[in-house]
């Protein structure tokens, strides 16, 4: 059985590892359009900040593919998947045949149409190549603008600031990280940004990029009102612009095939696409979201790794179901450790229950969102130690009636879950370390 994995990041790697546990012999080929092998995208901002050197970007050993006997084709982009002929066609015209295929092509950074890509000093931050070229443009004392206040934008802003640049973050929302926090947590985050010397322009966008001799000189900002209408804002001189407006799934290679796509490639609980022997995982895949109970693309490292593993197990002929994904993020910068997951700003009048505990002076904020006595979302700022206990309660849809009043107390921990759930939690405690059953052969 020939296995082909398109993509060489978290999902592709997780899949290869899991597949090889159950199938030692089938030939596996990994194809990636990048020329660098195995590096962690999530570490690129640390590399930009000089917190780590380039060698630490690798998230598996150098001999990883050799040890798992996988053939690796780098620098070649898969342009078409042909489910009929069971092969993929690469940009150099070469064809690679498969019996089982995993599409783990990830996503590409979005570049708004008004941002020119051919002006020096304008970058996205997605690949190691992006990080390298940004690194060469970092000069202490020079001015940088980061467009977008999401996770990547914030990590980039702190990295550039750490390297001595004057940084302005331009964000359409009233506060940064708007997808993962609420106004209460934002107050602490925004105050910390200011203290750290990072300027934020909220309710704003970049309308135009100005350049001198093809090098960026300034951005024209626009003020965005609550209806989304723009009026002209100020001119922000800068030497560097990092665009962090999110990612879009790389699924062009399935266009025109029977593989069904929505926002991402649609998958079932086995990470199978609508074509039986073709699987998808990671930032390109749309999965069931446990918190929102809707199909969604949770483009996150942890989700990609887990989805890759599930795909790998199933591709090896064993049966294992994916419970679904949860949007989850951990971000930290000087003075702020923040973890959030699930639904953090629930719609009103739909039966959601919200508890908050804000201690602005102490820079502590906690919020839990519940529905029908089950945790649906969480935000923790600077009291994050038991975040995983709460995530586990969310993922397992545990009824938390008995401990509802304690969820946000500083004394809450796994001990209380054990106390409230007795035998159910005892089993978890006892069995956690024990090898799970071999997954059924299909």
């Amino acid at each position, binding site marked *: 059985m020939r296995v082909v994995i398109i993509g060489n990041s978290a999902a592709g790697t997780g899949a290869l590892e899991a597949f090889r546990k159950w199938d030692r012999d089938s030939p596996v080929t990994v194809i990636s359009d990048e020329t660098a092998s195995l590096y962690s995208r999530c570490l690129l901002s640390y590399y930009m900040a000089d917190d780590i050197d380039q060698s630490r970007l690798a*998230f598996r050993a150098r001999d990883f593919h050799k040890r798992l006997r996988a053939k690796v084709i780098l620098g070649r982009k898969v342009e078409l998947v042909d489910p009929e002929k069971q092969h993929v066609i690469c940009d150099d015209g070469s064809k690679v045949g498969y019996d089982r295929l995993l599409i783990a092509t990830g996503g590409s950074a979005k570049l708004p149409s008004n941002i020119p890509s051919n002006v020096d000093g304008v970058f996205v931050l997605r690949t190691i190549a992006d990080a390298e070229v940004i690194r060469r443009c970092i000069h202490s004392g020079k001015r940088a603008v980061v467009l977008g206040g999401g996770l990547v934008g914030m990590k980039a802003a702190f990295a550039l600031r750490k390297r001595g640049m004057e940084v302005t973050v331009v964000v359409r929302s009233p506060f940064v990280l708007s997808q993962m926090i609420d106004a209460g947590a934002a107050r602490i985050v925004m105050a910390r940004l200011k203290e750290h010397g990072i300027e934020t322009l909220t309710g704003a966008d970049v309308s135009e990029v100005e350049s001198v001799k093809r090098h960026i000189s300034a951005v024209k900002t626009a003020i965005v009102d609550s209806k989304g209408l723009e009026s002209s804002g100020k001119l922000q001189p800068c030497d560097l612009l990092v665009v962090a407006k999110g990612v879009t799934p790389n699924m062009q290679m399935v266009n025109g095939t029977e593989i069904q796509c929505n926002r991402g490639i649609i998958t079932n609980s086995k990470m199978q696409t609508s074509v039986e022997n073709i699987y998808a995982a990671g930032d390109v895949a749309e999965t069931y979201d446990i918190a929102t109970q809707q199909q969604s693309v949770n483009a996150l490292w942890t989700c990609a790794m887990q989805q890759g593993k599930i795909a790998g197990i199933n591709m090896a002929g064993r049966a294992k179901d994916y419970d679904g994904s949860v949007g989850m993020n951990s971000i930290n910068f000087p003075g702020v450790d923040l973890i959030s997951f699930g639904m953090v700003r629930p719609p009103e009048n739909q039966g959601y229950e919200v508890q908050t505990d804000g201690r602005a002076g102490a820079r502590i904020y906690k919020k839990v969102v519940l529905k029908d006595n089950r945790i649906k979302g969480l935000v923790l700022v600077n009291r*994050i130690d*038991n975040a*995983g206990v709460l995530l586990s309660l969310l993922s397992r849809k545990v009824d938390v009636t008995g401990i509802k009043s304690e969820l946000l107390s500083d004394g809450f921990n796994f001990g209380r879950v054990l106390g409230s759930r007795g*035998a159910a939690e005892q089993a978890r405690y*006892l069995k956690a370390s024990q*090898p799970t059953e071999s997954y059924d052969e299909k």
Partner: protein
Amino acid sequence: MKEIFCNIDRCLACKSCEIACAIAHSQSGELIKALQEVPSPNHHVTVLKVDDKGGKVRLRSVALQCRQCSEPACVDACIAGGIVKDEITGIVRFDRDRCVGCWSCTMVCPFGAVIREQDSKIAVKCDRCEDREQPACVEACPTGALVFCEPEEFEALLAGSSSAIWEESK
């Protein structure tokens, strides 16, 4: 596979395990010297309150450390590839040299067993005292609440105990 377990009906919350663990993971390995070490050594086992309201006798507690999960969520979550499950010993290993302090492991650990070293911003946790015959916490436990054994042995131990151990308390 042998693991560290805690019998909550025997745990008195005396925190002997915490002290022994911190000493075992100190530079000097001695209590008095360990107290003066900078940074002060961490304990990777923590005594947690199990009951909120007191029962007739006393509050129950549990000494909890990393459960060395067979399918560890932290391994998937680590963006640096710094967490590895040793398939032979069963130990989940955290690599200090790879940790960037992103706390993704904290985000997903269902037991809350990741300890965040405040000075170094590095995630640490129970290493099951690999180089010792008995884990330090088990050795130090004065009541026999902490044991190092196979899970079946532990279940048998609980079954043979007189009180209504680990039952639903309410």
